């Protein structure tokens, strides 16, 4: 943790936040490193609560949180100035054109008016709304509203971008374009971002690190590559013959498995090797037709972190 937090943009330690009697965050600790980080978890896991605490909207009951070395509770304006927030919910100002809206957002972030207007046009072109920038946002489609929300978060060139469910309500093509845009912001513009989502594929497509929340606690965190990297104990297996006995015997040996499109993914326990699979197959009278070391997917990590056991 000490290593991890050395260059962290945001750190939180033993953080507890509650809404009256409801504990939304229960003594959570972690850090957001520079680069793209995914914030995963089911609804009500505490993701948005963490973002709102980071923005200084909520005061923690206990623990501490810091962003860029600043305390969002005592210095909320300084912190918000360096953050761009794209909320999950629809947000626009009625009657305003996109260019006026984004320029206004820049001004609210402290930019001089002329600079804000000039950058609003650039950012709207960047997110693909250049041609529609003089239309009022009320007339935009859902996809265009998502883009204008992204533009208002980008206009003041924040050090950290908070994206709360950025692909909500988008069709597959719009979703791909939005993810491309986010990837570009992170890769080409070197902007750190926190992608808060319940869609594993979105996080996998964009992020290098992930923090998984469940029931107000950090269930898992780290680099996605490390969390899902090759493990000796995961194998993709395809057998010929009746697999029922084979799988039952594997369960008796303490292994777990999931059914894939074409075979099974078997999770061996520590100390077990592929020879167990061959031995069990021989004993059950089935042939192993395919065996390959597998990798844990982010979904496996997510389900495991949430306490959902793979079939056993």
């Amino acid at each position, binding site marked *: 943790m000490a290593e991890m937090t050395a260059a962290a943009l945001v750190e939180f330690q033993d953080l507890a936040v509650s*809404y009256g009697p409801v504990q939304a965050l229960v003594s959570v600790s972690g850090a957001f490193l520079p680069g793209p980080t995914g914030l995963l978890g089911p609804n009500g896991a505490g993701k948005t609560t963490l973002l*709102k605490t980071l*923005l200084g*909207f*909520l005061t923690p009951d206990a623990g501490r949180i810091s962003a860029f070395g600043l305390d969002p509770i005592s210095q*909320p*304006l*300084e912190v*918000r*100035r360096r*953050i761009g*927030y794209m*909320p999950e*919910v*629809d*947000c*626009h*100002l*009625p*009657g*305003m054109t996109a260019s*006026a809206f984004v320029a*206004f*957002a820049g*001004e*609210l*972030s*402290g*930019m*001089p*008016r002329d*600079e804000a207007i000039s*950058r609003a046009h*650039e*950012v709207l*072109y*960047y*997110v*693909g709304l*250049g041609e529609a920038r003089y239309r009022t946002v009320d007339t935009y489609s859902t996809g265009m509203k998502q883009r204008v929300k992204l533009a*208002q978060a*980008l206009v*003041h*060139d924040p050090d950290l971008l908070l994206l709360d469910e950025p692909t909500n309500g988008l069709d597959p093509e719009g979703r791909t*374009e939005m993810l*491309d*845009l986010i990837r*570009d912001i992170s890769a*080409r*513009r070197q902007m750190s971002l926190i992608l808060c989502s319940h869609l594993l594929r979105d996080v996998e497509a964009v992020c290098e690190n992930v923090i998984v929340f469940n029931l107000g606690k950090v269930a898992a965190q780290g680099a996605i590559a490390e969390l899902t990297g090759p493990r000796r104990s995961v194998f993709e297996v395809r057998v010929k013959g009746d697999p029922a006995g084979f799988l039952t015997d594997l369960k008796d040996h303490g292994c777990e498995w999931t059914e894939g499109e074409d075979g099974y993914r078997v999770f061996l326990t520590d100390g077990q090797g592929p020879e167990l699979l061959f031995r069990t197959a021989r004993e059950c009278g089935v042939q192993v037709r395919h065996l390959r070391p597998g990798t844990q997917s982010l979904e496996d990590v997510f389900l495991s972190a949430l306490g959902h056991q793979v079939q056993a």
Partner: protein
Amino acid sequence: MPIYDQTYRKYEARGPMRSVRFWPITREALRLLLAKKAFLALWAACWLPFIGFVIYLWGVTQFAQAPQVAEMLPSGAQVFGRYFHFQILLVFILSTFGGAGLIANDLRTGGILVYLSRPLTRRDYVAGKLGVLLGLDLSVTLVPALLLYLVALGLAPDRYLVWSLAYVPLAITAYALTLSLSASLLLLAISALSRSARVAGIGFFGLIIALDIVRGVVGAIYRWPGAILLSLQANVQAIDNALFGIEERAYSIHWAYPAVVLTVLGLACLLILRTRVRAVEIVR
């Protein structure tokens, strides 16, 4: 070509934080309002009483003989108080059309998050919205009343350019602020309680009218002068009468009572605003 091939410049010119952070909120809302022709027409209509009073002053001073002028022009500062009587209802109407959606629309469209996720405090947000209404209301109370004072000085200096009326500009300012602040705070509070500008507008104007009817009924039944304390319109008119020396039997109560009522109302509105803006942050 992928859409993101287009790029934008890096912005590295972060200066010190603005000291007056609410101003862009006020300015932008006023710009949007004044871009509507119907609203501009309404605003212009609020100047009609001023034009009427100027014509009246000019007519009396031009065409009446010296002793008649004294009879036709109200004594002392009353002419300004009478002018404000006309403005009370107009201020409520202008506020309703200009400000009912100021917070309600932000709650409906999520626009409030655009403000609150920026380097702004809740106080900046409320001050920005209040600035819109104060700007509108003062533009049809303070500005024309001061102009009317200047017109009166020019047309009838022997009646108005006297030491005993030197307090009038201060009285005009105090009253315009009282009227504008009362209407603005109440409307903002009601706007913060709703997600619909229409509901907020009807709620505000309906409340003003309903309270005035209650005041009339209670006053008629019980013959109690304190009944005026039930109505916002009557409270501000009582202050108006006290400041400009107008005597009306219905408003015979001491001005301190309406002043206390208006102060309590203002504080209650601020409390509602504080609670509602905070609640939005948490609930969303």
